[in-house]
């Protein structure tokens, strides 16, 4: 078990009386592609937000790459090499595509305000490298010649890709993708799946994704965690999940499981 990248122990997040995330235990191994699935309102995105520091859990422990992350600010967590995308795309609309990607490098750039004012050699070289890297990442996610376009002028699929490129720019060890193929047509979805595989295979980045689309989940995940009402109700290989009675009930209601299995 030395290659565990992320482990959460009994993480609880409450909003007033509502328990949005209840005692979540998740173990993500280095280099794997895992998914969290579950019906709407199951607490998946809230769980993501506790991982990235947007919410502070009331109880539990989160250990990422040897660091306890609870209580750290989101930017500090990003600095530890966790990156994410958002369910509803959140690009910096009136910045260009390349600028968006360069914002992702913020924690990795070492320039200071003084460097920027004096245009030191360090600054110029770093900016040049950052620019080259951003261009490379843009092309890596499959976009060409749109570097100077404003992000909001790109079509939907392109915006999703930039979000991935922007996240990759922060050199993550763990990439959290929140419904990355929502709203895509089957072709685009295929491309996206291929991209995620490449990210893991070429760059060795561990991926944890939330997804509704079962084709994506089953096609890409090595392990699946199922959430319902804030709790983990099942965990296992795709085939195991497919046959799990509780999972089917959670999705389709009680009684449905027997019908489907029958």
């Amino acid at each position: 078990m030395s290659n565990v990248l992320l482990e959460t122990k009994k993480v609880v997040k409450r909003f007033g009386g509502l328990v949005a995330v209840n005692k979540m235990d998740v173990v993500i191994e280095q280099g794997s592609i895992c998914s969290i699935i579950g019906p709407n309102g199951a607490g998946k995105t809230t769980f993501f937000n506790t991982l990235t520091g947007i919410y502070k859990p009331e109880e539990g422990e989160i250990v990422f790459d040897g660091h306890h992350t609870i209580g750290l600010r989101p930017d500090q967590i990003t600095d530890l090499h966790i990156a994410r995308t958002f369910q509803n795309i959140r690009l910096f609309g009136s910045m260009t595509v390349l600028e968006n990607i360069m914002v992702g490098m913020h924690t990795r750039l070492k320039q200071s305000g003084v460097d920027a004012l004096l245009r030191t050699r360090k600054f110029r070289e770093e900016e040049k490298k950052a620019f080259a890297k951003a261009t490379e990442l843009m092309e890596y996610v499959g976009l060409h010649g749109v570097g100077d376009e404003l992000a909001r002028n790109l079509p939907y699929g392109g915006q999703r890709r930039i979000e991935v490129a922007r996240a990759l720019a922060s050199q993550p060890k763990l990439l959290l993708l929140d419904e990355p193929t929502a709203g895509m047509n089957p072709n685009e979805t295929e491309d996206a799946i291929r991209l995620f595989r490449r990210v893991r295979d070429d760059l060795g980045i561990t991926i944890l994704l939330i997804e509704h689309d079962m084709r994506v989940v089953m096609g890409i995940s090595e392990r699946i965690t199922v959430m319902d009402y804030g709790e983990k109700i099942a965990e296992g290989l795709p085939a195991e999940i497919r046959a799990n009675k509780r999972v089917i009930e959670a999705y389709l209601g009680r009684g449905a499981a027997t019908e489907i299995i029958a």
Partner: protein
Amino acid sequence: MIAKLKTTLGSLGEWINRGKVPYILSITGLVLSTVWVYFSPRSLPAFLFFLAMAGMIYYFKIKPVAKLILGLVVALIVVPIIGARNIFYLEVLFQIGVFAALALGLNIVVGFTGLLNLGYVAFYAVGAYLWAFFGSKQIFLLHEIPGTAPQGTPFLLPGDMFYLFIMLGIIVAAVTGLLLGLPVLRVRGDYLAIVTLGFGEVIRQLANNLDKPLNFTNGPQGITPIQKPTLPGGVMDAFNVILTPIVGQPVTEGQFYNILFYFIALLVAALVIFVTLRLDDSKIGRAWTAIREDEMAAVAMGIPAVKLKLAAFAVGASFAGAMGVVMAASRTFVSPESFTFMQSIGVLTMVILGGIGSIPGVVLGAAVVVVLNLQVLQEVSLYLSQLRQSDSVIPIINFAWKNLSNQLDPAKYQRLLFGLILILMMIYRPAGLIPAARRKRELKAAAVPDADNGTQEAADE
């Protein structure tokens, strides 16, 4: 109809900027306008034409070196000559410089980072009162009632210290910005606007009321006299040796101070533009814009939002602090009246009018508002007061100009002007006269001939 007009103007714009045409146009324009102003030094249209021509240097597609040379010639040679003929023009240009720097400072906070600061003028006040206190006799008057300075009280510091205090103004204002920012930056957008408004008013009221128990600010009467910077020996004489043959008479010391302050304002404003440009094109500037666009996404990308917002507050404040010191020295007088909420809104109006987040836009906005304020409104006021003194009557309604109230003086209606500009810009052109353009980086894009595309697109949004 409007579209047709746009294309006509567009092709005209293209023709103007092709080949040698812009060189010929800019040089002839500048020479003509200079000659016009020189021979009719009191003509408003002449001066406006001159300003427009000077501004056009920025737009003409000529070599950067040529732009720089033209700009320097205008700023360093032509303006002082014109100014020596009519000192009022220097006042206008001085104020444009001061307000351009202020507006650029506010632009960092409002335009880049998206934080609406309605108490910005407080930082300006901090700089002004800094020099007003240390560069005057006030420290010896702490136990005096306002307005009762004994004869022969000495100044605390010599005028040389003014130059040091510009630096100190930057530091003290930046620290004030940090101190304000630390508690308030947690507050959400529209609340932040009101909190900063409150902060601005608190500073003004403190300036108004800190004449007791110890008389720090001299209360509503304000502090005067304040030291002017000491002139390096012989500079004025040298200046007169060059200028007298051109203008026809030597400048007095008072006039020379106007020229000097114009140069100081120009220098500080240039520095401010330089700093703004360089910060904007760095990871700091990108982070500011990212926070403006979507704070949560920015934070998730690893940007420490609070730290960067504080930086924006401090940098913005420091510009105002420096100009506060300059203003206090040039007026030799500082009072709470100069730091009202209306002043803050005036600076905001410049930013909004010119183009939020756009450096050339903000400078243009400052120029337009200052010229409107100082010249156009004043000019109309002057015209009206002449009418008031005449016997003329509006024919049909039979209204004698004599009966026109003093209160209807257009110069007194700045609020109307600012208000109208803000409303109309928000509704019809929220990006401003010169919308901010994103920097083009991609190598391929550089090969595309029409580099103005970005501006055009942003304008159409």
